[in-house]
């Protein structure tokens, strides 16, 4: 199948007074049309920077050091701002974490969605824009759109606001939707509804979605494929089933074991020891080695390559090397 988005060996650095911070290091992944890819990792692992660098929304202090971003067969790595402006919204758009800061509190929701519609279809008459706004609001599950479009963001609950933000993001019928922690600020019940909505919209419009989150628990519902990020690198990638039933990387084990649902009846929750490394001075070898109870001597010297488990499942850990000792993973296998 043709790849919609292909990122190859992407490295992004921030240049700060304290020196160069390598936020994204040598990341490669691809996205097919209509697919949901979840990017999972702790805060500061570079998952948001990855999305923003694809959309070219990085601040000036950041620079793409190497690698390429190919969308629909066209290389956009070197695109200037003017060209990007045309791509954003049509080709890809973004849903942010906090719907309160993403919306303008002084404009009605209808006006904000209408603004996005006009940008993408400049020739539209007022009535047609109104029609399209109501269509979009219905699509994202805001009922009674004729009344609701005249309301301001503060009239809406958090979940409704996030639906509004999604309507704006979908106004240009993008082929790729980046959702950066869209449910983190929401309650469990609302979170489940928004996840279902994401899934529903993706199925109806065929929009490919990159879903960024720190919570592996919410991924099971929406994702076709999962990429686990640690310290700027993708350390494991596979289908949702492979990641949940047969995880291979010790960091993925740690993330799964920290979930309370898998700790029922135990006295304390599993925690990953230590802290993520400082990316201004990434350690030699595997960045996860010092927190990894299964670390091998080579982990401190050389970075592991991506080892192939199946055609869709890859993990960057020396444990998959044929010379590595066999260990019993602390998790997985049981459900399969």
């Amino acid at each position: 199948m043709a790849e919609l988005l292909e990122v190859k060996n992407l490295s992004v650095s921030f240049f700060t007074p304290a020196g160069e911070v390598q936020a994204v290091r040598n990341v490669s992944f691809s996205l097919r049309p209509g697919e949901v890819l979840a990017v999972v990792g702790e805060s500061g692992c570079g998952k948001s920077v990855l999305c923003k660098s694809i959309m070219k929304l990085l601040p000036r202090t950041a620079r793409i050091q190497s690698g390429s971003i190919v969308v629909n067969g066209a290389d956009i790595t070197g695109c200037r701002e003017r060209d990007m402006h045309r791509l954003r919204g049509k080709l890809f758009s973004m849903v942010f974490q906090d719907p309160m800061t993403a919306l303008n509190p002084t404009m009605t929701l209808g006006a904000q969605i209408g603004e996005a519609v006009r940008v993408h279809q400049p020739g539209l008459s007022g009535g047609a824009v109104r029609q399209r706004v109501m269509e979009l609001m219905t699509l994202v599950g805001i009922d009674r759109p004729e009344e609701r479009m005249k309301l301001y963001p503060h009239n809406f609950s958090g979940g409704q606001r996030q639906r509004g933000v999604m309507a704006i993001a979908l106004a240009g019928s993008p082929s790729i939707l980046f959702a950066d922690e869209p449910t983190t600020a929401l309650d469990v019940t609302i979170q489940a509804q928004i996840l279902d909505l994401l899934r529903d919209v993706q199925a109806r419009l065929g929009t490919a979605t990159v879903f960024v989150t720190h919570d592996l628990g919410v991924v099971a519902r929406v994702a076709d494929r999962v990429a686990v990020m640690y310290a700027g690198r993708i350390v494991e990638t596979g289908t949702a089933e492979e990641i949940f039933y047969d995880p291979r990387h010790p960091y993925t084990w740690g993330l799964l074991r920290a979930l309370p649902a898998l700790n029922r009846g135990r006295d304390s929750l599993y925690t990953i020891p230590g802290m993520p490394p400082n990316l201004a001075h990434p350690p030699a070898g595997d960045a996860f080695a010092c927190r990894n109870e299964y670390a091998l001597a080579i982990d401190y010297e050389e970075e592991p390559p991506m080892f192939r488990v199946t055609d869709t499942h890859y993990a960057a850990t020396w444990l998959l090397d044929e010379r590595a000792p066999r260990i019993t993973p602390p998790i997985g296998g049981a459900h399969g």
Partner: protein
Amino acid sequence: MAEEILLDVQHLTHVFPLNRRMSVRAVDDVSFQIRRGEIFGLVGESGSGKSTAARCVMNLYRPRSGRILYKGIDTCDAAAFRANRRMLQTTRQLIFQDTSSSLNQRMRVWDIITEPLRIQRVVPPRGSLRAEAAFQMHYVGLDESFLDKYPPELSGGQRQRVAIARALAMEPELLVADEPIASLDVSIQAQIVNLFKHLQQEHGFSFLFIAHDLAMVEFLCDRVGVMYRGRLVETAPTAELFSNPLHPYTRALLSAIPIPDPRRERSRQLVTFHGEDLPPGGALREAGPDHFVLRSSGSGED
């Protein structure tokens, strides 16, 4: 019952006036008790009044009606409060959700932790204020190298530990934690939850733990109260509530917990609950041992 009741909230009601004509009943006739050494979880969606209830408990809001008895003292009664002011202000402590706003960015960590001691003019039991701060830091699992740092230099989990250390500096008996883990990463959440559990088991602290993450609540709490639109709709021991939820809203809430298993998760059906389904009035009725459900006065068993 043999267990001592530390906090007894009786028919608490708090109303926020919006304008001359309208007002919001943020907390409506809520009653619950916290026993000594117990972690009581208060769950519900945002806007259900759980934070307001916590702030009433901490005397930050003056409730419209109802009583809050802490160790038998009515904290809403001005005379009783004045008479026991010092005890009430030191043995109850609050931990907020957002540490970037609850810790002063311009104070060093050891200053933050010992500020309550200075305010209450407590002679530091371990010699100096700095030694006291170092002791509390160890208690929450941070080492002394953090003492001279400023909050922005710390990660979210470390800042939350500093906030907990500050609350512990007064050697409280009741800790009120208002969504202390909502803004943290999953692995850091686990660390903070383990810390709470340790504080309860080893040192006998009592907690009012407010959260919307039910999976964590199930793991941490002894008893849970479910709030919806200002009403307490169900309260029960944790195991009982999760295995036998009686109120439709509790069922909806429980059905929304994500399961980290793609096949089961995708077949999971969400139970929905609409506000119209909750009739006004009604009272908590006993449905089992220590298990209470809100039932409207007319309706029988469902």
